[in-house]
């Protein structure tokens, strides 16, 4: 089994001149599943973006390393080559670029053998019950919310990263797709020793993807860490105990990173 470790130490970061992350400490090793839960607007996506190097964020302090190498000094593609993967909360549409072209370019850039890419893609599609006909479409264009999340999961399966950050991979997925995707990711933790940092609002993801650690991110910092029981507890208690009052949460939800609209994948019953 591989032995990789992503270490986040005292990470502070902001966007639009506002400090969002105020000192994050987390360590994710190969084969481990860490879950981050927290109120809307608490900085979960910000954390995922800063780790992957999305433009527009300002790192104000702290460090992120993968096997000791300084991740924050790397270009996004170098982070991917180092072994990181980000499944986005809102995967970007890239008109005219088919999935297979993108994955071939990604393999070629990493000096991996591109032969048999279509085969690899259809094997992965089969594992999560994703219809082949979606695969020739331009990336994420005209895909439904759930189809986009399956597409992200499929790419994770093909790229076989060391550590994957999954930003609400479960939102938008129907019950069957959620089970299939969670199983696929769980299998990767065993087959290839994938380390997972999964951001989610719902315990249901953890029915198939077995969490080792659950962390609560609120007010820009990890407020509490525990085992899978913590996720269950949060489902009944909410985040009030972490100093987040209801009106502030409602306000933050309205400014989620998808733009001025509320999260389109939000659970209507939540």
């Amino acid at each position, binding site marked *: 089994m591989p032995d990789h470790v992503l270490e986040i130490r005292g990470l502070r970061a902001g966007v639009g001149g506002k400090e969002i992350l105020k000192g994050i400490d987390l360590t994710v090793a190969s084969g481990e599943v860490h879950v981050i839960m927290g109120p809307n607007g608490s900085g979960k996506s910000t954390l995922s973006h800063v780790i992957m190097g999305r433009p527009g964020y300002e790192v104000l302090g702290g460090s992120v390393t993968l096997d000791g190498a300084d991740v924050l000094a790397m270009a996004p593609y170098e982070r*991917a080559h180092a072994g990181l993967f980000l499944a986005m909360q809102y995967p*970007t*549409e*890239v008109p*005219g*670029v088919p999935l297979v072209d993108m994955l071939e370019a990604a393999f070629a850039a990493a000096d991996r053998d591109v032969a048999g890419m279509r085969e690899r893609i259809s094997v992965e599609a089969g594992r999560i019950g994703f219809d082949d006909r979606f695969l020739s479409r*331009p990336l994420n264009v005209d895909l439904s919310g759930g189809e986009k999340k399956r597409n992200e999961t499929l790419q994770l399966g093909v790229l076989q990263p060391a550590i994957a950050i999954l930003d609400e991979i479960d939102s938008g997925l129907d019950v069957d797709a959620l089970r299939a995707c969670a199983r696929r990711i769980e299998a990767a933790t065993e087959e290839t020793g994938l380390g997972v940092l999964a951001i989610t609002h719902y315990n249901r993801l953890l029915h198939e993807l077995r969490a080792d650690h659950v962390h609560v991110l609120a007010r820009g910092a990890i407020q509490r860490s525990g085992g899978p029981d913590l996720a269950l507890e949060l489902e009944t208690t909410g985040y009030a105990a972490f100093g987040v009052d209801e009106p502030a949460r409602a306000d933050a939800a309205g400014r989620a990173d998808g733009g001025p609209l509320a999260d389109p994948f939000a659970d209507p019953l939540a």
Partner: protein
Amino acid sequence: MAVPRPDPANGRDRGSADLGDARRPPIGCEQHRGPDRPSFREVREVPLSAFSVDAIARLAGPQWLVDRRSDAAERFASSSLPSTEEDVWRYSRISELDLDRLAPTAATATVEHGDLGRATIRRADGLDAEALGELPEVGDALVWLHHALAVDPVVVDVPVGVTVPDPIVVRHQGAGAGQATAARLLVRAGADSEVRIVEVFEGGGDGILLPATEITVGPAARVGYVGAQLLDPASWSVGTLELSVAEQATVTAGLAGFGGDYTRTRTDCRLLGRGATGDLVAAYFGDGDQMLDYRTFQDHVAPDTTSNLLFKGAVSDRSRSVYTGLIRVGKEARGTNAFQTNRNIKLSDDAWAESIPNLMIENNDVHCSHASAVGPIDEEQRFYLESRGIPTVVAERLIVAGFFAEVLEQLPVADLRASLDAAVSSKLRAVLA
């Protein structure tokens, strides 16, 4: 004989001045202002030294064609060159055109075809004055010069009800160094016929080619056209594509513009009969110092007509592009659907793209939209690809190729796709290295 001309150092502009037109809609790019320009109207007379009626008439061909060309040459001699004062020439480089440097030259086309069905392709030898049609009633100096130099008109006639199985390919060489040449293609598709035409413009030196393509689409006929401009870097081309579409007929016309120093295509699509449809797409990609210039006119004359226009461009290095388009919906054209979209990617700070859509609507029962954009590569798209392990330049090449794919997929002649994809990739490798 020497005709007085304005001092060449005077009254000449780079065609990029005077952007202060209040009617221009806001667009998402910084605007480049050229140097201030003198306000007098520029008049450039036609030099007769090289372009005399005699010189033009001396070009070979059957007598009826020499007569026709001489007639055009005489009109040319008494007309003036277009100027950037005219809206349709604004931003163009027409004022750089120096006819004194050029000599009238005969140019011939190459025609390739497979199974023609019962269609005919005629050249000068098989034509007569009537078959080629009258000279137009009005025109500027370049219109007359085109007719004066068109020694090898190609005329395709597709009889009523005939489907031509294979595309007809007409190749034109760009004008060689010091030459002025013309290319003329006429396509007449009879009622309920079907034909696909490809015109390729390639090669050339630092001369000017004046192409004109006229396609008449008969009732319920279906015509596909692709004009691929792959000229060598020094070449100029100033041309027109005129589409006339009868009732229930459809034309799908695609333009690709990659080569040349200054190349301009004016496309007029006239929807003349009820239910006519015109789909117009273009992909153009500038690099170095070249300028690609597109003007379009979607003219809805008859009721229930539809036009869809999608022009996409990229400019890199110090290259420039111009798109100006007008949709006109006439009084009789009730039930019109007309769409016009122009998107441009600016790949370098020194590149410049102008995009000006316009609507002129004379009745209420229409569904029209226009959209235009100029901007850099989308940062989010680039990050998405980079996050998968694709280096920045490779990600940018994929995004630009994908941007053009939407247009290239719509071209009515699929065989051309590979060579146009290759033209895009080779530009991308050069400008995103």
